[in-house]
């Protein structure tokens, strides 16, 4: 197994759900409760040293019990290594801990995830929509149940018999 994954598993036996390595990408899936603890470890542990946040993303799996997957990607400038941290949340209670206290760049990235997928971040300083308008009420665009090709409005237009003169 990858040495990073080994070390994570030894430190957090209970909270770690899955460890994968595919195409050279190392990924850790943790339970929602241990997320902040693991993230802190990733940043502060001298073997990990992940000081750079790459992106925060989310994936919608509508058929799963825990529907949403939140994904963070970190890089270590000194150690030149990457890791992906993932956690799952159910639709009924889609809240995860914000990591803005550890990486300041997480602020905008988490706002985007909230905007696009509707996942709330606990302790986020300014959780508002970022790309969609503030008063947008039609849901969260990147969810799989948000229609991909319009909402059928264009089928409801009335056609005039004659072009107005």
């Amino acid at each position, binding site marked *: 197994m990858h040495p990073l994954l080994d070390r994570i598993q030894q430190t957090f036996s209970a909270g770690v759900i899955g460890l994968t390595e*595919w*195409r050279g990408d190392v990924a850790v899936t943790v339970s929602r409760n241990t997320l902040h603890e693991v993230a802190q470890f990733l940043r502060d542990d001298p073997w990990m040293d992940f000081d750079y*946040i790459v992106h925060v993303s989310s994936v919608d799996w509508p058929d799963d019990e825990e529907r949403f997957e939140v994904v963070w990607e970190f890089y270590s400038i000194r150690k*030149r290594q990457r890791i992906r941290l993932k956690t799952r949340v159910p639709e009924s209670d889609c809240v995860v801990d914000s990591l803005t206290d550890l990486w*300041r*760049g997480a602020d905008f990235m988490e706002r*985007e995830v909230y905007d696009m997928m509707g996942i709330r971040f606990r302790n986020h300083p300014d959780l508002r929509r970022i*790309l969609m308008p503030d008063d947008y009420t039609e849901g969260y665009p990147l969810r799989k149940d948000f229609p*991909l090709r319009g909402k059928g409005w264009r089928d409801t237009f009335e056609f005039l018999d004659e072009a107005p003169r």
Partner: protein
Amino acid sequence: MAFEDQRTTVYKIDPEHPESETLPTLRTEELLLNMGPQHPSTHGVLKVILELEGERLVKSTPVMGYLHRGVEKLAEDGTYHQFIPHTDRLDYVCAMYNNFAYCRAVEKLLNLQVPERAEYLRTIVAEVQRIIGHQFWLSAQALDIGAMTVFFYCFRDREILLDWFDELCGARLTTSWYRIGGVERDLTPDLIDKLKQFLDYFPPKIDEYQVFLEKNRIWLGRTKGVAVISAEDAVSFGLSGPVLRGSGVDYDLRKYEPYSAYPKCEFSVPVGKNGDTYDRYWIRVMELYESVKIIRQCLEQMQEGPIMADAPSVTLPPKERVFTNLEAMIQQFKLFSQGFDAPPGEIYCGTEAHKGELGFYIVSTGGGKPYRLKIRAPSFVHMGAFDHMARGYMISDACTIFGTYDIVMGECDR
């Protein structure tokens, strides 16, 4: 003549004893100013709500999304090949590098090897694009600060390269020349000649750009010590590219996660010291010289060979065959309409575009379309640090900071 009304009182300080007058409650009030969404210095449609104390910025809140077109959602509806033209429209002044970053990500997902000549061609064109990007940045930044002349000089030389792109792929801005597994067509001897001529012509022109700025007191005054960000903060905010290197952090994916033909070229990565706007300017100008170096080396080292990976189930057939051969046409049609069968899994692949780290995170569940595609856009991440970097500077420095990020709103809002 002092103007007095009921709300404002003008206090006069005795010049003999300035400290004697305890300045009482001078009326201060924070001013809220909307900058944008239509403002020439915001590089697209962006609004920033500035909270001002006098002319000082106390807090700035970017309001984005005016150019949001739902590119990530669109990606879920099309095949992998169909998404390439969408990437052009992300950072529309540097389409080639977006294509490059996307194709690399899909190749990582497929574990596809690109032939050597294609890697060289990709590197050459990517560096030409980097030159264009930096020229565009330099002209826009100088214009924001008030230096008009550089703009014309940069655009004169940029035009040569855009014409070169036009000859290469038939488009100046939205190029779509990269393909998954290789490139669309080879460089003709004529194009190589033209590029070589440009490489001889260009370095003296970079010196020329610098002459306009490096001894210009206005330029120095408005860039030195403006929008300083420490290395620690820059890393914590996830800044990348010249903005991060300006703070003295040596982070360049071309060097440290080498890809394409970069490991075979010798080039250096300029790193700044002070983390101010001037250092970021200096880095970009130095990168112009480095790009010229990289292109030269690639042209020398490049050997004849195929320009597309030998994987017919994934890669498109050459265009000439599509028009003359029935099987090739069917193959092209099937690849575009149904796509190829990507293995299930997820990857992240970052590429050093000229703005910073442009990354694609792709989740595949098999089949011809990506299940989820996330774009890590450097402009978006940089905007996250705007409030931090602008705090305490003057309102006119806000324009400088937009410029120093090199933001393009098409990429920021996606």
